[in-house]
């Protein structure tokens, strides 16, 4: 609430042929406020006056909103206004019964997130129990996980990974920001001595396939739907 007059100062600077920072901030603010989805810096740049310093604008906006009821946050490498986390108690009443994930689904999601790209067999190995197709379908349905490709291995199993939507939902800027990732890596559970036929040094949701992955084929993309139809209600 300390600001207000900073606009005026900025407008003065426009006299020296630098794009008006204050005006660019207003535009960025309007664009970010108006958008239903996070916006990337490039997208913003493309719609701001020529020569606007997008990085500075985002920095200033983030600082301006830092202590307020609405914050500018970075999710999935993009920018979005969201209500401040500490105010969830007043806003929770807005929630129209958010579907809770089962424990099995949450664990499966965590394994996909931390170990991606990962196959179903690998998920099952970690959990020591069969994963119902319904669980994976539910996760596919949330839009948080996706089919990545096929592992170059006998049976060519499908590999799973997370989506940008996953990062958005959990308020993560990048997959490296997963909570407890450092501990997991430090404990050597993700890399190192785990006696298993797979070891993933660092989770990666990079769109590009890894060396041991083949692209999906046309039919693969239909598969989850089929699975879903045939096994609806399994979960």
């Amino acid at each position, binding site marked *: 609430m300390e600001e207000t007059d900073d606009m005026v100062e900025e407008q003065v600077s426009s006299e020296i042929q630098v794009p008006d920072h204050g005006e660019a901030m207003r535009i960025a603010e309007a664009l970010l*406020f*108006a*958008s*239903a989805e996070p916006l990337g810096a490039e997208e913003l740049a493309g719609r701001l006056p020529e020569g606007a310093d997008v990085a500075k604008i985002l920095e200033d906006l983030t600082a301006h909103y830092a202590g307020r009821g609405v914050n500018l946050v970075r999710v999935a490498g993009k920018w*979005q*206004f*969201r*209500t*401040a*986390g500490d105010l*969830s108690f007043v*806003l*929770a009443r*807005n*929630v129209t019964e*958010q579907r809770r*994930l089962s*424990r*099995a689904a*949450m*664990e499966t*999601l*965590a*394994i996909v*997130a*931390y170990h991606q790209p990962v196959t179903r067999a690998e998920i099952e190995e*970690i*959990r*020591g*129990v*069969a994963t119902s197709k319904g669980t994976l379908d539910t996760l596919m349905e949330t839009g948080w996980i996706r089919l990545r490709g096929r592992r170059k291995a006998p049976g060519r199993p499908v590999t799973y990974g997370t989506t940008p939507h996953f990062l*958005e*939902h*959990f*308020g*993560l800027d990048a997959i490296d920001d*997963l*909570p*407890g*990732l450092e*501990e*997991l890596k430090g*404990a050597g*559970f993700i890399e190192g*001595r*785990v*006696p298993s036929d797979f070891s993933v040094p660092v989770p990666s949701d990079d769109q590009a396939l890894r060396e041991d992955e083949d692209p999906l084929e046309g039919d693969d993309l239909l598969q989850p739907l089929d699975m879903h139809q045939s096994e609806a209600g399994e979960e």
Partner: protein
Amino acid sequence: MAQPLPFEDGAAPERAESEPALLVDVDGFEGPLDLLLELARRQKVDLHRISILALAEQYLVFIEEARRMRLELAADYLVMAAWLAYLKSRLLLPEPPKGEEPSAEDLATALALRLRRLESIREAAKKLGEREWLGREVFARGAPEPVVVRKDSHYEASLYDLLSAYARQRQIRFNARVSLHKRTVWSLIEAREALERLVGHLNDWVTLDTYLVEYMVEPAMRPTVLASALSATLEMVREGKLTVRQDEAFAPVWVKPVTDPAEAGA
């Protein structure tokens, strides 16, 4: 999950038959690994220093108890029990000098690592679940203002498109008129009438074709005239009004009126 397990101290206490079966409830567990993890936690020691031997024993006791009470156990649990029984025996016996197989210690370490990995991912899942979820703890703009896309149509067309459209359109019209002529057919009725007229003049064999020439001034009419005439001829043969013969395949067809009904069908 919160159900008390009957082997807090690694030993199965004696239980009376009357004790509730809930004590050996596997419903709360997500498979044998989960059960092992829970048993391990009950050792109240760091997973790094867990006694796999003690753990194996507890697991086997648990399974024994469950079977004694005739609980249905998923195959997974029994497979794990068999494997742990094997591991237990390997751990208790002196190691063979130098086996091809991994040592019992290695197997135990591997199991301990799997438990730790499951524990870590559980922890990770918990932390993930505790984050502020969009739409649960934090909210995006409730009334986003969509970008209005003003569509400015820019039409593309070439002179070639224009001329071919014009030519096509105009040409369809005059071609359509021509094709109407083409479609003219000599109907069976017309053929029959013509033949009946012909037959009146005949008294000897004559090739059909000769008499149809009159109707074949237009080359396009030839097939329909011939087909209809032949059909009409055969019909009249059937009625005993005509006799027809052909000396060989594709040779001219000869017709002759039947004057004497006895000749019919010859």
